[in-house]
């Protein structure tokens, strides 16, 4: 995640701020700590994969990349927090995720697979910001954008008006534990 809390919201420059604004600034400083807590992201990942896919998904040390094709979904944050939630998956895992969501089988990363991965990223962003009350109420989400291909890099522009130096969270890797048979989460 790349993020920065807006300066106007966290530390007003004018001397005559009311109590409510001061209270909000204190509350937001606490929120910044929550934003930086990687356990919130881990919990969001586990929640989304368990509820939507019925799959256990836990943090795992990154493995050496053997797959060149990947699918990356990006959901932007706007309002109190500027930044983006980025979800990146190897193509084979993306096919499995989409199969689990839809009950269909996929041979390649088509529009349905991209749609599914975009929704996973959307739910991750929503679950993550929902764990920080000020963000849940004052931070909007963009619709997902999805990138596929080989050997690409992603750069998210930092917000110009951020009070905190923009920082990119260290990428966190997760491993799914797939059931023996890949089937839809909500079969007919």
């Amino acid at each position, binding site marked *: 995640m790349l993020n920065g809390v807006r300066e106007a919201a966290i530390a007003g420059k004018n001397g005559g701020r009311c109590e409510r604004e001061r209270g909000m600034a204190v509350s937001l400083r606490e929120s910044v700590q929550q934003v930086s807590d990687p356990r919130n992201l881990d919990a969001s990942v586990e*929640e*989304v994969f368990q*509820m*939507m896919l019925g799959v256990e998904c836990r943090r795992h040390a990154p493995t050496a990349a053997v797959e060149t094709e990947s699918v990356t979904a990006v959901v932007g944050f706007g309002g109190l927090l500027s930044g983006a939630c980025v979800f990146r998956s190897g193509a084979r895992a993306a096919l499995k995720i*989409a199969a689990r*969501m*839809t*009950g269909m089988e996929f041979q390649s990363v088509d529009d*349905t697979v991209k*749609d*599914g991965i*975009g*929704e996973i990223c*959307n*739910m991750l*962003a*929503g*679950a993550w910001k*929902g764990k920080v*009350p000020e963000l*849940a*109420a004052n931070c*909007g*989400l*963009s*619709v997902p954008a999805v990138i596929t291909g080989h050997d690409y890099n992603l750069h998210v522009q930092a917000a110009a008006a951020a009070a905190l130096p923009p920082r990119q969270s260290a990428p966190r890797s997760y491993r799914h534990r797939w059931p023996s048979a890949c089937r*839809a*989460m*909500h*079969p*007919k």
Partner: protein
Amino acid sequence: MGEIRTLIVDDSAVMRKIVERSLRQAGLELLVVHEVGSGTEALEILRAQPVDLILSDINMPAMDGLEFLRQMRAQNLAVGVPVVMITTESSEEHVKQAIQAGARGYIRKPFTAEQVKERVLPLVSAA
């Protein structure tokens, strides 16, 4: 319970399918489902045919779910039809806005089929 004409509004086709499957799992077997990807398309459907149940996302391009609800009420479309929002937005403020706009239920993504059943079935049974 007879045939339930349902309108599912979400810009993700995958999510529309998941919602539909969750409804069938909830026991709503006689579903006639209209799927659309935006509030604008949903209004067109409602002008053309009656429905018994509406499930809508909030964050959508073109016209979001809250504006869709407001437009629906302003145009006297689907009067009395229960609307359930299914969305990643989970704050009290969003719930309040949805209720004010006319929603009767609210489901946060990610969700389970059981949650869909709990929130939707009473609304359909009461209609």
